[in-house]
C-alpha cells in the first residue's frame, strides 16, 4: 500500500521561528511536491522536486525553501514564520515514468498555526 507521511498533523509556532515540515514517501517516486491549501483557493504549489537535490519554485515560493537530500524525503522550511503562513500544508509524490496520467499520492497534511 502506497504511503506518504508527514511529520506532524498539527503544529503551532511563533512568528519568527524557523519551521521544518517533513515528508516521506515509500514508493521510490522521483517527483515530490509541497502545496499549501487555503479555503476558497484550492491547492497552490510552493515547491517541486524532480529528483534528489533538484528543486524548482512553484507559484508561491516566497518565504519558503526546500531540501531533498534523499529520494524518499522532502522537507519544507519556513525560514522565519509569519502569521500569513498559517495554513494546511500538503505533500505529494508521483512517479515520472512516462505518463501524464499518473496519480499524485498525498500525505494527510500538516495544519500549521503561526501565532
Amino acid at each position, binding site marked *: 500500500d502506497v504511503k506518504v507521511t508527514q511529520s506532524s498533523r498539527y503544529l503551532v509556532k511563533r512568528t519568527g521561528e524557523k519551521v521544518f515540515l517533513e515528508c516521506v514517501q515509500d514508493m521510490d517516486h522521483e*517527483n515530490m*511536491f509541497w502545496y499549501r491549501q487555503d479555503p*476558497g483557493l484550492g*491547492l*497552490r504549489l510552493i515547491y517541486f522536486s524532480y529528483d534528489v537535490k533538484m528543486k524548482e519554485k512553484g507559484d508561491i515560493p516566497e518565504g519558503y525553501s526546500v531540501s531533498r537530500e534523499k529520494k524518499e524525503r522532502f522537507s519544507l522550511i519556513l525560514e522565519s514564520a509569519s502569521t500569513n503562513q498559517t495554513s494546511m500544508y500538503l505533500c505529494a509524490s*508521483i512517479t515520472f515514468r512516462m505518463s*501524464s*496520467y499518473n*496519480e499524485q499520492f498525498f500525505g494527510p497534511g500538516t495544519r500549521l498555526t503561526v501565532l
Partner: protein
Amino acid sequence: AQSVTQLDSHVSVSEGTPVLLRCNYSSSYSPSLFWYVQHPNKGLQLLLKYTSAATLVKGINGFEAEFKKSETSFHLTKPSAHMSDAAEYFCVVNRDGGATNKLIFGTGTLLAVQP
C-alpha cells in the same frame, strides 16, 4: 495556459438524490484531467482521471465524469448520493500537457449530503 474553474463552491443534496459537481477547463494542450476528493481530516485521494481513451470516465465509489471538448467541461456526477460522499472535491488539470507532473487545482467544491 491551463486552468480549471469549479463553478460551485458549495453543493448540498439529499441522500439518494443525484450529484453534479461542475468543472470547466482551459488548456492549450490535449488536457489530462482529474477529480480528487478530500474527506475531513484526510489527504486527497484520486477519484478518477481522463486519459483520452474514453470520454466517459468511471471512478471509485460510483462517481463518473464526462469529458466534453466542445463545452470544455469535465463535470463529476453520481446517480445517488450517500452520506459518506460528504467531502471537498477538486477538479485538476495537468499544468503543461504532461511534460512534467505539475498540476493546477480548482478552488474546490464542498459537497454536503443531507439525511
